């Protein structure tokens, strides 16, 4: 997983701040992704995860085993 640059942070579009710089009260009801905090789940889904570099809708966001995970789930579906 890529490391965040904490010395010169660029907030992703739509993000309102960074989780590690916000109090629990400030994060109340918010949506955190890769350390960036968003007001709504929709905002978060449209934003590249600042740690992985992928949109939440990109299959690569599932991690390095993303192809195996997807194939196994598909294989179970085709068995039925």
């Amino acid at each position, binding site marked *: 997983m890529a490391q965040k640059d904490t010395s010169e942070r660029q907030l992703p579009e739509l993000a309102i701040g960074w989780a590690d710089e916000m109090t629990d009260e400030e994060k109340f009801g918010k949506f955190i992704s890769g350390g960036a905090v968003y007001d709504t789940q929709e905002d978060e889904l449209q934003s590249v995860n600042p740690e992985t570099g992928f949109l939440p809708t990109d299959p690569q966001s599932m991690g390095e085993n993303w192809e195996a995970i997807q194939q196994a*789930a598909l294989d179970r579906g085709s068995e039925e």
Partner: protein
Amino acid sequence: MAATVRINEYNGAGPTTTNGISNSNFGSTDAANITASSFPITSGTNSFEKWQKFEVTALGGSSAIKDLKVWYTGTLSGSDTFKTNARTSSYPGAASFTTPTASASTYTQTMPSAAPAVNLGIAGSLTGSLTGTGTSDYLVMQIGVNSGTVAGTTLTINWRYTEVA
């Protein structure tokens, strides 16, 4: 193409949602992605509950996601307990969120240690499915730590789902 999925965790009264969690470490604080050694659980007490959901963020050409199964692999330390709301029969519907607690959870099913039948619902039913983006019911989990526990036990929590092409 196939679906894109992730696990999200819910903490605090808000709750605050952490999408795409990177670990499910249990500890003595109500937070996502914790470092377990920073929040040890005293023997004779419980971890904070974990409240998590499975989310489909993109169907990727599949028509449905269904049959959620959750279990752990590895060996619990000493006489520790691993409780959950997940169950394969008499599923009571989706759990309603309450602030995660370190008091004894109201959910007392034993987490299976091998792949079970479907044990986590979608829209309140074990036979439910997602035909678009969306989430499962809440999965609630809690570890009870016994006096015989050895520090540093590692378990793996497994999530399995089926995709309908």
